[in-house]
């Protein structure tokens, strides 16, 4: 896919911090995610996040594939991570 982002259209992955904090006990924006499509590993905070949509769509900044999606209804959250091959989550020991 020929990914041609326009910086007016998306925010960075920090836009995911609030919505994901409802679901996970740790801050996932500092986790390292490996793109299931191109294999590049980047912090979740570097994703290109499209927020003017029915849900949040996080795209790999390198290849543009969808790495993560979140939909929030009044009583349910849906999370799609099938575009993320692995998440490396830093934890305090």
């Amino acid at each position, binding site marked *: 896919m020929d990914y041609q982002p326009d910086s007016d259209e998306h925010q960075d992955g920090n836009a995911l911090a609030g919505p994901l904090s409802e679901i996970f006990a740790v801050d996932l924006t500092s986790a390292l995610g490996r793109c299931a499509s191109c294999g590049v590993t980047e912090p979740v905070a570097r994703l290109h996040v*499209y927020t*003017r949509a*029915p*849900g949040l769509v996080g795209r790999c900044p390198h290849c543009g594939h*969808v790495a993560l999606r979140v*939909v929030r*209804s009044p009583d349910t959250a849906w999370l799609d991570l099938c575009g993320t091959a692995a998440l490396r989550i830093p934890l305090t020991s």
Partner: protein
Amino acid sequence: MGVVSPGFRGRARESSRRLPPGQYETHDFPVLSAGPTPRITRDEWEFAVTTETGARHAWNWAELTALPSDSPTVDLHCVTKWSKFDTSWQGVSLDVLLAEVETAADFALVSSYGGYTSSLPLEDLLDGQAWIAYGYDGDDIPPEHGGPARLLVPHLYFWKSAKWVHGIQLLTEDEPGFWEGLGYHDYGDPWREQRYQGD
């Protein structure tokens, strides 16, 4: 002394009658997008219908715009709760495009340049309910609103009306599209407020 004209009250009454539950009226045209805006030239643009047997029917830009067109004026209802009244489009009815297509399918998966998809029953694309639109408000459709061409199926929530439409697959079983596969309603009737699965 304030005088509210009967015309103004009439408009307000009409507005509430045309507004599905949970929606508010907007006068601008919000741009919603799950990804970057693809820039597709008319020269490279193509639209194809693929049936459940694999038969493929394709139209390029010249072929599409040579077909008889309609100029529907419709209300739009976005699942993010805005509604926009009296939008004017130009496009080719799916009745025209599907007239020569032989199929026993019940479902359609619409796909776009850029990878977006939406799904709906095939019957909702027929009987004057849906168009491949290539004109908006007397002009070309701007890329951010789905140009050069988008699906227009205004009786369902607007996420079904895929921007930058590229093809429709006719299927014997429902295959959820981009939002139908992540919590949104399979059908999406704004008048029954079918936003999420289970609504």
